[in-house]
């Protein structure tokens, strides 16, 4: 296995987070006419619609230059933007790096943990 954090969630066959769960539910409803479980599926769609955010928290050990590099690699941000987020983490204790659908946010958090940053997934208030 490559040592490098995954950059492509689609390549991860065993990844069962929200997308897989919704997919499983859809497959189940497709094969069961008597019990379409519409309410459950609607719930899943609503969950997907709620925006999530990727938050990186301050850590006194990680080097500033390393954190900047990780932001550039994971999010594809230009250096200036990556540095700006890194400084926000450093001075304010946290920075919101990205917000959007849950599945993508989960993938970003996973990548950030692969680089050993303190990152969390949060629902947008």
């Amino acid at each position, binding site marked *: 296995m490559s040592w490098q954090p995954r950059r492509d969630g689609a390549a991860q066959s065993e990844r069962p987070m929200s997308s897989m769960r919704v997919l499983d539910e859809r497959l189940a409803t497709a094969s069961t006419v008597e019990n379409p479980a519409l309410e459950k599926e609607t719930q899943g769609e609503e969950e997907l619609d709620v925006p999530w955010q990727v938050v990186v928290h301050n850590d*006194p050990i990680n080097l500033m230059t390393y954190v900047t590099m990780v932001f550039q690699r994971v999010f594809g941000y230009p250096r200036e933007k990556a540095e700006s987020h890194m400084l926000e983490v450093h001075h304010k204790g946290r920075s919101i790096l990205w917000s959007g659908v849950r599945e993508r946010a989960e993938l970003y958090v996973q990548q950030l943990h692969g680089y*050993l940053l303190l990152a*969390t997934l949060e629902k947008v208030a």
Partner: protein
Amino acid sequence: MEICRRNDELEISDLDPFLAELLRQIPLSANPEGAPAAEQRLFSSPADANQKEICAEWKLYVEPELRRLFRSATETVAADLAQLNGKEKSIRNCTLRIPAQHADAWLNTLNQARLVIAAKHDFTDGELCDHYRSPIGSRRDLSLFQVNFYGFLQEFILREVSGFAGTDLD
């Protein structure tokens, strides 16, 4: 100690036995086993504890993947460090050559080691920012020196592979 890039290799030359030993300690230092605080830091929670479903799925499916990732990086570094084997008792300085394509594995493993050491010793911000602390008079001082030495190596590797410069610590 001298450190430079030569073609496709990062070369750390004129390594005295003490620094060579610190390098040999990298894989061992990166191992969080037996230290709950270090384990918790390397495999931190992906969400607030109230998000039980996310945390449970993460533990089940993502954490094993992260463990494999970290182990793979550590194995790459350990293989590179085999160059230093058999020189433990030598008082002569030695050289370590790191293939440039292993740079990311080194960055990852050095980070693991620094985080594990810091978690084990619970260093204060003051200690971590005191780069001129000397002499080494205790195991704790030595560990702090290790954290800073590994950080210095990380900075060098970052500068060489990514064009990054700077020595400030977060």
